[in-house]
């Protein structure tokens, strides 16, 4: 269909968008790369060009780096586990015809619309406050000692908050997956003598495998950059400092732009490695 003329017209019209996208992506990346080889500490007036890779080596060798990697893995892993398992369970429930289905579904999606900062604040002050929080009252109602969530179980608390936010996303995608399952397959399995849990294990779960991998992939990409929830609740204290947060601290709190930029580049590389692995797994799953 496309003639020579229309093709060149198309290129011409796409050009501004491509140009803007490239600038948007490349300028920050190049600036970060540039800063990462500088000794750039604005508060001390240091701006020395070309310290080579010393920023990288000092970032990689600091003890905070390995800790932050571990925290990041635990946090992302924990949230993924909770949202996938919870999402499957909720999707199974919501798939059943119930009274007021439309409203219930909207309510389930609601947490996803709450901004991360707001939800972290609500959780911190309304639920997890050891004196006035609802959870403290609940514990007291049962005669138990209220937990001081954010100082005793800081990592778990953040996992909980973020899971609450991402559960709707997982539920939504998994629900559509369940709804696309051919009901005759379930009936066939029923005729074949498969009880409820076997039908779930052998028919429903394999059917959802693809959707689950998509959920894991998308969530991992977003979860690697969790920031607001940590900033609002623990400020990175009590072993909740993820790689993203470490980079922030290096740049803003220590005012060491060079070191922070090096950390940022390292984070980008690590995130890409994770993404490549995930893409491979997902790709394999999508082929089948």
């Amino acid at each position, binding site marked *: 269909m496309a003639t020579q003329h229309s093709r060149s017209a198309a290129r011409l019209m796409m050009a501004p968008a491509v140009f803007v996208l490239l600038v948007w992506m490349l300028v920050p990346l190049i600036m970060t790369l540039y800063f990462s080889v500088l000794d750039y500490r604005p508060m001390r007036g240091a701006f020395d060009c070309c310290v080579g890779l010393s920023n990288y080596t000092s970032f990689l060798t600091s003890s905070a780096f390995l800790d932050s990697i571990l925290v990041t893995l635990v946090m992302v892993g924990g949230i993924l586990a909770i949202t996938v398992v919870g999402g499957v369970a909720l999707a199974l429930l919501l798939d059943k015809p119930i009274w007021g289905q439309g409203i219930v579904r909207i309510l389930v999606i609601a947490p996803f619309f709450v901004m991360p900062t707001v939800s972290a604040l609500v959780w911190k002050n309304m639920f997890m406050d050891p004196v006035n929080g609802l959870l403290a009252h609940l514990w007291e109602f049962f005669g138990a000692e209220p937990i001081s969530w954010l100082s005793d179980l800081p990592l778990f608390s953040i996992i909980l908050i973020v899971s609450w936010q991402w559960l709707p996303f997982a539920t939504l995608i998994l629900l559509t997956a369940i709804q696309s399952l*051919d009901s*005759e*397959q379930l*009936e*066939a*399995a*029923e*005729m*074949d*003598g*498969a*009880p409820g849990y*076997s039908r779930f294990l*052998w*028919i429903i779960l*394999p*059917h959802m*495998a693809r959707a689950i991998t998509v959920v894991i992939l998308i969530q991992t990409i977003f979860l690697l950059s969790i920031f607001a929830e940590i900033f609002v609740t623990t400020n990175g204290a009590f072993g909740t400092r993820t790689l993203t947060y470490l980079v922030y601290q290096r740049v803003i709190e220590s005012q060491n732009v060079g070191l922070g930029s090096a950390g940022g580049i390292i984070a980008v590389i690590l995130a890409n490695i994770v993404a490549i692995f995930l893409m491979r797994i997902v790709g394999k799953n999508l082929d*089948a």
Partner: protein
Amino acid sequence: MGRITLDKVTKRFGEVEVIPPLDLTIDDGEFVVFVGPSGCGKSTLLRLIAGLEDVSSGQIRIDGEDATQAPPAKRKLAMVFQSYALYPHMSVRKNIAFPLRMAGIDKAEQDRRIENAAKVLNLTDYLERRPGQLSGGQRQRVAIGRAIVREPAAFLFDEPLSNLDAALRVGMRLEISELHERLKTTMIYVTHDQVEAMTMADKIVVLRAGNIEQVGSPLTLYREPRNLFVAGFIGSPKMNLIDGAEAAKHGARTIGIRPEHIDVSPQAGTWEGTVGVSEHLGSDTFFHVHVDGMKEPITVRAGGEVGLHHGDKVYLTPQPERIHRFDDKGLRIA
């Protein structure tokens, strides 16, 4: 064994009564076909027997035992679905093995039964493939294989051939009939295609709006349709139904005559008419003849090489012993 008895079975979806009280007995080893236009309740009836729907009232007995409340798995019935309902993530072998695995049958026995079924259905070369890599006919055979290995009391087929193309359908029809001859197991087969019903059934159950219109062997239904509905539904092309003065001559409200029971002559006969559209099938030719004084054209079967053309004058003579007579209520007059 597979004797199935329905005793005053009804099914209601809310206010709508899909199946009014219905009695039916299916004998062991019979090939029974439920046939009727779409929406006549034939699939619902099959699902009631399978246990995939609950009956509203009445009783279903399988081999004399009350199975009305029994879950599908306990009824010893196997079903082949219209969409085949194969498990897409399992290989053919695993698909066929699934009911055996659920029944907790040991591995060696599983393999033996799978090999047998695969041999019967020509699936041996495809056992390691996924359903997605098979053609429609092969998928159909896998679905049948999954039913066979359970060694059920009866097979239930829900329009199994409607997703296949015409040539394949004829082949699968033969294969299913062949299978029935070999296994001698009760089979209940739902279709809207009267050709499938006529060719395969030992016993046809004609349904309309949940009511049984007639039960009988294919030839009984062909020779002695109990009412106008069955008369019009069984046989291809349709029986000619004639109202008015011509019917009154035979002492009936409506008379019916099949296209193959009318003699055509260019010289003389009972009815005079003009040839309309003719359909040449090679072996046969169907003429649509406009007879003077009749609203509908009469369909007539003639030999393949009869030289009649559009607009020609012809005379039609119905074979008198083949005329079906129906009264005011549409019932057959004996």
